[in-house]
């Protein structure tokens, strides 16, 4: 193995060689630079490989032929090798990236770059305190030099502010170093750690050294200078500053915290969490992309510092966690800064230019996912372990703060992503093939690291999950025509179903059928799309992959990973809608919030167990169990859009594309239901402060069912109406589940199936109408029955089924509902559900009436029936609904028997096609028989009496002695239930919306107010710095005394 010293020697040597070249020979100078950086990267990588393969051992490198602590020594271990690889590779890529500017400024700039990379490597390698100082100074000076690469004149001021701050830091550091030396008689870090303190001021000295290192990490709020640099520096350099410098400085801080001993770790924890929270909060009101990236960098580094603070508790996991976050951050941040160099404008929406280049969009999404810690990237695993460690060691406030801040961070990043995807680009991309290549390399590195972290994880590798791989396959396949991809996607879903359905219990099987086969049926509608339809299939398949994995998840980790996957996939899907930007954002925020609640719940439940089986939830006891229940339920209820957590749903479902709405409504919501199923199945009744939590769920379900229905009745937008209806329907299902009896669960299953079918059907029908009429506002339609008869039929069947009118399948749901509530003691919530039923009838009637009945509008006289591919699945659903209504037993009987094994009872007796309960009978075939016979007889009667009726002209009516001549005056549709609104309108008060808006406004207000802290004055920044030092000093004194 080559000596790691060569990394330093190569960097320095090449820098000196550059001085020997002619001043004008930029090109060879650039090659020398590249060659040196490549050599440095090679050495670092070869160490990584060697250490991983076990071909070599970590090595201590002595200099000057003397043993430490008498001479400076370096240490090369796994962490060092990995981080130096990150640093040098970032340097190499950034050098390529900045080629034009480096050439412009000449060999001196290249030398500075080389020295910077060398110094960063040195900072990582060295084990000597003063040597650390020297490298830090080198980094400071080189940074101040490279800031000048920017053509932005403001960079000058930023560089100077940086120098001011660095001066103060180095003063503190030097004083700390010398007193540490005085105390320990040594400058060697390992030696210091091993030597007991010799005098009383030693802790003060340690404090100064640590605080100086912490200040290098740009802690909030003493970091205005760093933000200015991020904003104004050359993006290629900012990539280095964030990825490489941040990484190296973190490692240095970690070294010193290790040496200082566990007593100092709370300092890191405290500063880390404050920084993580503060930076992300302030980032909320940023509109400048690079400054936002700066805030994000600061926040991420704070996060790692937090992890450093947990070092003692994390033990062996420390490297995995900290490494995961550091490396994720380095790759993602470098990638984002490189991307920012290709975007001309500096506002967040200027990133819309990226949309011209799908590969870059994927890269952008990758980086954001890496930063937010989504699977399958390293930070995801890291976050998992970290949260579990918080929970296991009882640091619950920390856990909460961490998750909230992570959520804010996700909000910042996804808000940005949404803007970039949905806005129109004002200016095109500054495109360089080399720059794109560099960005894509970073993206691939991200995926590769995801694989590595997965392989290292003891929880299983997300990247090797077959469904995910299949979904990712659609990224390169995106160049294929949409229909080919569609067929492949359908085939994939069906095949996955076929190969995996045998292992599932009937409950999971039903969900599997809904998700996989139902998904395949829904894909039929996607055949409607011509062309390529870029960016549709990969997210859709990721969502389905998530669901497939969710059903087969047996450990908490598998479950959570699958959950996150389906969340991300659906987010991208929803984001595709035309006006969906704000709704997709609120969707992802609520979903991630819910996911974090899940994470916290699982972590609490695991209590430090490495692998936590879902089924072990049932063994939880004591005061912990109800809290676990609350957290998990909160997570799942977010997905089922229970009242209060629902505000994301209407917009998200309504704005989604025609074939996406049924996916996210009919299928995605079932994931939440499945989660709740698992939860109540494993945990059952839990009491918190004497309240049975399932009772709360019953109430919540009932409330959602009722208010969802009322709100739906007031909508003018057809898809929003259906969206609110979903809230209501899922409320029923939650209600059923929470009844905690056999029939309640059967009810929930029945609703799961029914809701999937009729909601998919209705969304497709309404979507088909929208395709033709180009509006979703119902009062702008009318009389479409003759123009779109098939759509009408599916809506008709849909609403009969949904409102529970016999003979269609909705009635079965109602029948089971009544039987279920007969055997429970809870009575009051029923009132709400009773109310919800007829109100459901209201909105459904409105849907069919205002769209299909009444007077056709002049501008819509020529519309055709919805496209074939959109109609086809609807007709399949119609057929299914009729069959299911007549023969419910074909699905329900198995489920019923399975639920019976769980409860040990069998309240329903299936005799032939008749269902009997303790209370009543349901004979679907007889119902059908009677109704059909009566209906046909009466119809025959009417035809006999009135067989030659002919359709008259549209305006062949008279009302109030007027003959209408235009439909607008006669189509009674807008504010259809006006009296109802007068009486029940108070339910429309947007309580939860105002609550969440209030929260958002408060956060934004805080951000807007607090960021005024950064006055831009270098002196003020220095004052902040000292203020920070003093504050930390006083706090830590107060804490230790």
């Amino acid at each position, binding site marked *: 193995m080559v000596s790691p010293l060569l990394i330093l020697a190569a960097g320095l040597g090449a820098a000196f060689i550059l001085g020997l070249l002619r001043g004008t020979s930029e090109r060879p100078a650039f090659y020398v630079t590249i060659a040196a950086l490549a050599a440095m990267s090679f050495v670092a990588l070869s160490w990584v490989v060697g250490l991983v393969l076990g071909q070599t051992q970590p090595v201590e490198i002595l200099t000057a032929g003397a043993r430490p602590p008498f001479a400076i020594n370096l240490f090369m271990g796994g962490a060092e090798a990995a981080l130096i690889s990150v640093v040098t590779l970032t340097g190499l890529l950034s050098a390529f990236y900045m080629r034009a500017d480096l050439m412009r400024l000449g060999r001196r700039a290249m030398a500075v770059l080389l020295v910077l990379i060398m110094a960063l490597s040195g900072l990582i390698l060295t084990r000597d305190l*003063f040597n650390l100082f*020297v490298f830090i*100074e080198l980094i*400071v*000076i080189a940074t*101040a*030099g490279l800031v000048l690469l920017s053509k932005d*004149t*403001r960079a*000058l*001021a*930023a*560089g*100077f*502010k940086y*120098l*001011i701050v*660095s*001066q*103060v830091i*180095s*003063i503190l550091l*030097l*004083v700390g*170093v*010398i*007193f540490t*030396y*005085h105390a320990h008689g040594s*400058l060697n870090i390992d030696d210091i750690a091993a030597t007991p303190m010799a005098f009383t001021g030693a802790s003060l000295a340690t404090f100064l050294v640590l605080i100086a290192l912490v200040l290098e990490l740009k802690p909030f709020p003493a970091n*205005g200078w760093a*933000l*200015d640099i991020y*904003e*104004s520096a050359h993006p290629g350099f900012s990539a280095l500053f964030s990825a490489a410098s941040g990484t190296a400085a973190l490692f240095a801080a970690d070294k010193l915290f290790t040496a200082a001993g566990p007593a100092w770790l709370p300092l890191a924890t405290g500063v880390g969490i404050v920084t993580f929270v503060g930076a992300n909060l302030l980032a909320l009101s940023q509109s400048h992309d690079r400054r936002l990236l700066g805030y994000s960098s600061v926040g991420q580094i704070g996060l790692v510092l937090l992890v450093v603070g947990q070092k003692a508790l994390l033990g062996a996991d420390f490297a995995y966690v900290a490494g995961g976050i550091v490396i994720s951050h380095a790759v993602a941040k470098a990638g984002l800064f490189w991307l920012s160099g290709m975007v001309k404008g500096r506002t967040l929406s200027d990133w819309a230019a990226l949309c011209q280049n799908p590969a870059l969009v994927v890269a952008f999404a990758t980086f954001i996912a890496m930063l937010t810690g989504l699977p399958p990237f390293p930070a995801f695993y890291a976050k998992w372990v970290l949260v579990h460690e918080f929970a296991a060691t009882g640091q619950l406030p920390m856990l909460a703060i961490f998750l909230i801040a992570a959520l804010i961070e996700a909000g910042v990043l996804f808000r940005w992503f949404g803007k970039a995807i949905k806005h129109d680009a004002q200016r095109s991309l500054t495109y360089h093939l080399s720059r794109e290549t560099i960005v894509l390399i970073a993206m691939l590195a991200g995926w590769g690291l995801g694989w590595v972290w997965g392989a290292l994880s003891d929880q299983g590798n997300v990247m090797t999950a077959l469904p995910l791989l299949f979904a990712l396959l659609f990224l390169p396949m995106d160049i294929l025509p949409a229909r080919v991809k569609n067929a492949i996607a359908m085939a994939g879903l069906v095949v996955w179903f076929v190969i995996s359905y045998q292992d599932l219990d009937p409950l999971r099987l039903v969900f599997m059928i809904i998700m996989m086969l139902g998904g395949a049926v829904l894909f039929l509608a996607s055949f409607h799309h011509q062309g390529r339809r870029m960016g549709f299939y990969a997210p859709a398949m990721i969502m389905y992959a998530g669901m497939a994995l969710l059903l087969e998840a047996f450990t908490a980790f598998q479950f959570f990973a699958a959950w996150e996957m389906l969340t991300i996939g659906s987010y991208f899907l929803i984001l595709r809608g035309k006006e969906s930007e704000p709704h997709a954002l609120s969707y992802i925020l609520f979903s991630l919030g819910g996911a974090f609640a899940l994470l916290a719940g699982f972590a609490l439940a695991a209590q430090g167990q490495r692998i936590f089986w879902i089924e072990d939830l049932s063994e939880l006891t004591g005061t912990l169990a109800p809290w676990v229940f609350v957290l998990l339920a909160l997570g799942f209820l977010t997905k089922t859009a229970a009242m209060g957590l629902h505000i994301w749903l209407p917009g998200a479902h309504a704005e989604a594309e025609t074939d996406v709405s049924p996916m996210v409504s009919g299928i995605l919501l079932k994931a939440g239901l499945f989660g709740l199923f698992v939860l109540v199945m494993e945990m059952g009744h839990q009491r918190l402060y004497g309240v049975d939590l399932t009772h709360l769920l019953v109430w919540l379900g009932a409330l959602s069912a009722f208010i969802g229905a009322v709100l739906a009745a007031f909508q003018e937008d057809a898809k929003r109406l259906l969206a609110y209806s979903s809230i209501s329907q899922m409320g029923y299902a939650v209600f059923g589940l929470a009844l905690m009896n056999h029939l309640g669960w059967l009810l929930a299953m029945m609703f799961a199936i029914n809701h999937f079918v009729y909601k998919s059907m209705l969304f497709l029908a309404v979507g088909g109408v929208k395709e033709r009429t180009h509006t979703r506002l119902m009062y702008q339609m009318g009389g479409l029955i003759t123009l779109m008869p098939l759509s009408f039929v599916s809506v008709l069947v849909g609403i009969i089924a949904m409102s529970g009118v016999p003979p269609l399948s909705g009635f079965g749901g109602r029948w089971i509902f009544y039987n279920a509530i007969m055997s429970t003691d809870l009575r009051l919530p029923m009132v709400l559900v009773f109310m919800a039923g007829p109100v459901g009838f209201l909105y459904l009637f409105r849907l069919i009436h205002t769209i299909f009945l009444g007077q056709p509008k002049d501008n819509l006289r020529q519309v055709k029936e919805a496209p074939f591919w959109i109609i086809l699945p609807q007709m399949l659903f119609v057929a299914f609904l009729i069959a299911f209504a007549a023969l419910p037993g074909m699905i329900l009987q198995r489920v019923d028997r399975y639920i019976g094994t769980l409860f040990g009872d069998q309240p329903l007796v299936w005799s032939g096609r008749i269902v009997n309960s303790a209370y009543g009978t349901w004979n679907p075939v007889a119902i059908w028989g009677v109704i059909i016979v009566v209906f046909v007889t009466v119809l025959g009667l009417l035809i006999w009496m009135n067989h030659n009726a002919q359709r008259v002209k549209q305006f062949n009516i008279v009302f109030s002695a007027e003959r209408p001549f235009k439909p607008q005056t006669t189509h009674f549709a807008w504010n259809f239930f006006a009296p109802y609104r007068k009486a029940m309108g108070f339910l429309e008060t947007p309580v939860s919306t105002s609550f969440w808006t209030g929260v958002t406004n408060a956060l934004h207000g805080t951000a807007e107010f607090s*960021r*005024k802290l*950064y*006055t*831009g*004055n*270098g*002196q003020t920044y*220095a*004052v902040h710095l*000292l203020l920070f030092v003093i504050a930390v000093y006083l706090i830590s004194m107060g804490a230790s005394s």
Partner: protein
Amino acid sequence: MMLSQIAMALGFSLILLGLYGALTNRDIIRMIVSFTIASTGVNVVLVSVGYLPGRSAPILDEAVPVAEAATRITDPVPQALVLTAIVIGLGVTALMLAYAYRLFRARGSLDISDFTELKW
């Protein structure tokens, strides 16, 4: 009070004075001057920490034979560190001065509060 303590007190005072100057003077050049005073103070502190009362410089010539070195010379390590620190200090000062010049060229002003376009 002993020699090293006098020196150390002086060093700390210089640091504080320098920092005070750097934080209150708006003129960029004066800020840099203040920083040099502060770094001088740091150097004084460093050397004073390494000073052992009554010992001589760590040079092993005729006055201090090799055999007696351990009992005769003062601690050489802080001195080595200060040497490095001084040179680094010069580097940083030169850099700051160059920056000051460029800033002046850019804005025609040396007032630090004029360079606040980047904020928030």
